[in-house]
């Protein structure tokens, strides 16, 4: 495999909380190759959004970070300001969850789409506008010219999301970060947006980090899927394998707790307890308190991500559980 486009190595991130530092990420490592799609799944507090922003070099105020983020070999976290801005303008782009909040309500769509291109991208206004309209068309917007002159509040949520996607592609990025782009829209729009993303990805050969809390969507979208819990990645596998043969108890729980239209289980499997944030992680395994397969040793030692059966997992009993199989309840 060629050198990965994005490489994140053991990122630990903490933010000031009063006089102490509160951890957000406790050692996250992942990589994305050229044109590859990595889905990142996790519930709230898992640290997935923070990770995505770290890729852009956008750390929270006052944050302290260790580890490295490398894009095409160059380090992002300590890049000088000009380089960082150029990187954000041309190499990586991000689309966000709630387009209505993430697009300036008092400026027109046309301004929104072209502002980055004309200021830091060095494009001339006319060229930027025509490119914007091309991208709007590619995002399946019928009347790009009309939309360009509109204000955000005049458009529906689905259209705004498409506008946001078009805006992200203006800089011709190589990597797209999508932070739960379908969470705020209804199911049919969700399908549309995913379809548009898929097509555009292929057309421009984009790599993508797709963040979601929906495990099925993640597996359907990504070549590989990473599962995050309490500020760390607990499992990473090619998506198809993840579905058939999950390696981590948390993933099992996530898969099992989704109601299925085909098979009707006797009882819907739930995981006891609630997801925790990195700051609340206990000394040993963070998932141990809620884990159906936990043993004494799990409380003592903090498992690190290690390769297993074609993927990676952070679980002390992973090998055992793989052999034995993790059906509904043990």
């Amino acid at each position, binding site marked *: 495999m060629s050198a990965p486009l994005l490489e994140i190595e053991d990122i630990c991130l903490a933010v000031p909380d009063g006089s102490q530092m509160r951890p957000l990420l406790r050692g996250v490592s992942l990589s994305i190759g050229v044109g590859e799609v990595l889905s990142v799944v996790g519930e709230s507090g898992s640290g997935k959004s923070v990770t995505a922003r770290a890729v852009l070099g956008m750390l929270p105020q006052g944050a302290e970070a260790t580890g490295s983020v490398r894009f095409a070999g160059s380090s992002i976290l300590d890049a000088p300001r000009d380089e960082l801005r150029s990187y*954000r*303008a041309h190499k990586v782009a991000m689309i966000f969850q709630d387009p209505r909040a993430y*697009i300036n309500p008092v*400026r027109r769509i046309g301004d929104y789409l072209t502002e*980055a291109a004309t200021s*830091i991208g060095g494009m001339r206004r006319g060229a930027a506008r025509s490119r914007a309209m091309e991208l709007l068309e590619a995002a399946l917007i019928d009347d790009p010219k009309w939309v360009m002159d509109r204000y955000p*509040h005049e*458009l529906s949520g689905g259209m705004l999301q498409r506008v946001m996607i078009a805006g992200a592609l203006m800089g011709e990025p190589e990597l797209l970060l999508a932070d739960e782009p379908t969470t705020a829209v209804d199911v049919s729009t969700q399908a549309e947006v995913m379809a548009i993303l898929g097509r555009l990805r292929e057309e421009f050969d984009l790599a993508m980090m797709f963040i979601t809390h929906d495990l099925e969507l993640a597996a359907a979208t990504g070549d590989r899927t990473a599962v995050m819990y309490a500020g760390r990645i607990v499992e990473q596998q090619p998506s198809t394998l993840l579905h058939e043969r999950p390696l981590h108890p948390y993933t099992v729980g996530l898969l099992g707790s989704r109601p299925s239209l085909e098979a009707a289980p006797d009882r819907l499997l739930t995981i006891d307890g609630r997801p925790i944030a990195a700051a609340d992680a206990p000394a040993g395994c963070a998932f141990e308190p809620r884990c159906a397969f936990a043993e004494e040793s799990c409380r003592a030692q903090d498992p690190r991500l290690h390769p297993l059966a074609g993927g990676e997992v952070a679980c002390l009993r992973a090998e055992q559980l793989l052999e034995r199989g993790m059906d509904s309840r043990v």
Partner: protein
Amino acid sequence: MKAGRLISLQVAAFALALLVSSLVVHSALYIAPGDPLKVLSAGRGLTPEAEAALREQYNLDDPFFSRYVSWLTDLVQGEMGTSILQNADVSALIGPRLSSTLLLLAMASVLMVVVGVGLGLAAGLGGKWLDAGVRAVSSVGIATPSFVAAIVLIAIFSVGLGWFPVFGSGDGLPDQVYHLILPAIALAMVQWSSIARVTRIAVRTEADREHVETARSRGLPESAIIRRHVLRNAMIPISTIAGLTIAGTIAATIVVETAFALNGLGSLLVDSVTSKDFAVVQAVSMIYVAFFLIVNILVDLSYALLDPRIRTGGPR
């Protein structure tokens, strides 16, 4: 188009408020205890001719409503009656004083907006110390009545240091402006605190918005982000408060003019009230009310102009 409807609504509201105010002002004369004639003449003795003239002028023998209507029509045409005290046409009295008051208001407005917004920006965009400093100064500023500020300024700068004249309005434009500097500061001082406060909050709020994050994620330079996203959006609440503050200052000009013995509309009003010169009180009050309403309408309109969400209505 929505904007057109908005404007016509505003004008209608303006007309209504003006009408009601005029009614109140006009009927005030008759609410006053005692015979209106006595009030008008403020207890001074009147010759029979003077009395008849007054009766005629104020149509005192006519029913209330026709009196009101004739007063109103006169007013609109610029005929504001006669001042009993000064025995002159009210409109003649008002003319030069109106310009003096307007000049004062203009100077004070510029001052309070520039300083207020400046302070607010410094507090909102600057560091912690600057922020805390501005907030402390603002608190005191808001708590100070304008006349106290006026007196303090006079004590320090006019009497103490002798930099500025104490009283009077001066002749000619440059001299007038010179005389108005201290009064303008007194007016602005009280108000620039509230403008600064709102500016600071607005800037802070806008800087935290998600769309700013989007701009940053696209590599826009920080200065462009502040200009185009933070400030541009903050302008909406800032200009609204600036406009409303200016409207609120209109009444304060009355006080400051008295404190500085300026030749403005406010001092005319106070004098006429003390001497119960009704025609003047009525006319001047209407002018103040009209002006106040006009500024308020301008504020509403500018709000609609700045915030496209108001202009064009809801989503498709």
